[in-house]
C-alpha cells in the first residue's frame, strides 16, 4: 500500500479517534493506524462515570464503539498495522509498517501508555497465572478466592471494588499512608465490607510454582517483610497491579523531545519539536490522563494539523 494522506494518526484510543473525527470532518484524507485493538486503555474499564455528557451507564467499550462510529461517519479510514519505524523530518512523513509504507503530510501520535509493572521476582513468570493488570479480563477467575491489589490511585481502588464482585476478599496494598484517589472513591472503598487495606508497604516477591500462591510484602516504615500465602483450601490467589503507567514511546525515543518520564513534550497546540508532527492523549507530557483530556488533545491536534497542511502544501 502506498498512498499520501493529509494526516495519519497512530493509535486508536480516545485521543486518536477524536483526532480522526475532527480531521475527517475537516475533509482531510485521514487514516488511523491501530496496532492490535481499538480503544486503548479505556477498553478495559467497566464503568466510565466521569466523562461529561456521555451515554448512560457508559462502559469503556461502549464509549469507544460510539467514537468509532462517529469517526467513520465522517470518512476517517482505519487500518490494523504495526508501525516499525518513522521518518518524520521531511515535508512528506514516511511511516513504515508491517503492512507497507504509508506517507502523510502530517502525523498525530496518539501512542498512549501501558500499565507499569511491579518489577519484582516472579511477576513476569506468573503473569496470566494469577498476576494481572486487567480486572475486566481476569477478575472472574478469582471468584470466591482472595486477591491482593497493588496501588493507591483511582484505578487501584475502582478496580479493587470491581474485583469484590467476584473475589471473597480484596486487600489493597499501598506504598503511602494515604490514598491518592479521589475522596469519593476512597470513601466508597472504605465502606466495602470485602475490602481490606495495608499501608506503607510494597511488594518484594511473588511466589508460586506455575500459579500464584503467595506474595512477600515489605513495610517501608519498619523494614519488616511479611508473606501473605493463599488460603490452603484455595491453593491460589490473585495479584492485580494498578500502579500507574509508562509511555508507549519506543517509536519516538531519541526522535522527539520528551520529559524525564519519556512522555512527549508539546506546546498547547499539541505540536512537537518537529513541524507537522503532533502528539495527543496519554503519550503527551501533561497533568491529567483521562478520556476527557485525551479527546480534547485529539481535537486540537487535528485542527492544528489541518492548518499546518493548508499552509505547507498550498499550491
Amino acid at each position, binding site marked *: 500500500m502506498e498512498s499520501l494522506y493529509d494526516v495519519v494518526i497512530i493509535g486508536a484510543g480516545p485521543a486518536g479517534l477524536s483526532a480522526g473525527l475532527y480531521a475527517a470532518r475537516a475533509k482531510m484524507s485521514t487514516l488511523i493506524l491501530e496496532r492490535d*485493538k481499538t480503544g486503548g486503555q479505556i477498553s478495559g474499564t467497566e464503568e466510565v462515570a466521569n466523562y461529561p455528557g456521555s451515554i448512560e451507564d457508559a462502559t469503556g467499550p461502549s464509549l469507544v464503539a460510539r467514537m468509532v462510529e462517529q469517526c467513520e461517519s465522517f470518512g476517517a479510514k482505519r487500518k490494523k498495522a504495526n508501525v516499525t519505524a518513522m521518518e518524520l523530518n521531511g515535508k512528506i512523513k514516511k511511516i513504515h509498517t508491517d503492512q507497507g509504507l504509508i506517507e502523510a503530510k502530517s502525523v498525530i501520535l496518539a501512542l498512549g501508555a501501558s500499565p507499569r509493572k511491579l518489577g519484582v521476582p516472579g511477576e513476569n513468570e506468573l503473569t*496470566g497465572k494469577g498476576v494481572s493488570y486487567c480486572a*475486566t479480563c481476569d477478575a*472472574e*477467575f478469582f471468584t470466591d478466592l482472595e486477591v491482593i491489589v497493588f496501588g493507591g490511585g483511582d484505578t487501584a481502588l475502582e478496580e479493587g471494588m470491581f474485583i469484590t464482585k467476584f473475589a471473597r476478599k480484596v486487600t489493597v496494598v499501598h506504598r503511602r499512608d494515604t490514598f491518592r484517589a479521589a475522596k469519593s472513591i476512597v470513601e466508597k472503598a472504605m465502606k466495602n465490607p470485602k475490602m481490606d487495606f495495608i499501608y506503607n508497604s510494597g511488594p518484594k516477591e511473588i511466589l508460586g510454582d506455575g500459579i500464584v500462591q503467595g506474595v512477600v510484602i515489605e513495610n517501608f516504615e519498619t523494614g519488616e517483610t511479611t508473606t501473605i500465602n493463599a488460603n490452603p483450601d484455595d491453593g491460589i490467589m490473585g495479584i492485580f497491579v494498578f500502579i500507574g503507567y509508562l509511555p508507549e514511546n519506543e517509536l519516538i525515543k531519541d526522535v522527539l523531545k520528551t520529559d524525564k518520564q519519556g512522555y512527549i513534550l508539546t506546546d498547547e497546540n499539541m505540536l512537537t519539536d518537529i513541524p507537522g508532527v503532533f502528539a495527543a492523549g496519554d503519550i503527551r507530557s501533561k497533568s491529567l490522563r483521562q478520556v476527557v483530556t485525551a479527546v480534547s488533545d485529539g481535537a486540537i491536534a487535528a485542527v492544528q494539523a489541518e492548518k499546518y497542511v493548508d499552509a505547507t502544501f498550498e499550491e
Partner: protein
Amino acid sequence: MLEFNKENFQEEVLDAKGLVLVDYWGEGCEPCRALMPTFDELATEYEGRVKFGKLNTTQDRRLALSQRVLGLPTIVLYKDGSRVGECIKDNASREGIVSLLEMNL
C-alpha cells in the same frame, strides 16, 4: 470454529492426536474480542494442520483453572494431548501465535 467446553474438552483436546490450539477467552475481556478475527484467520491458514477451537472461560471457569489459565487472553497449544506452549496477554498476537505454531509443526 469448534467450541470446547467441559463436556468435550477431554475428547477433543486431551485425547486428540496432533496439534490443537485453544483460545481461552472471557465474556468481559475486550482484548480477547479484539484477538478473535486474527484467530479465525489463522484457523483458515492452518486448516488441516492444526485444530483450532475456542473456550469460553466465563462458562467453564473450573476447566480453565484446571488448565492453569488465570489470565486472558491465553492461547494454549496441545500436541497429542500434552501442553507444548502458550501465548499469554501481550504475546497473544498474530506474531506470537504464528511463532508458537511454526516451532511445533
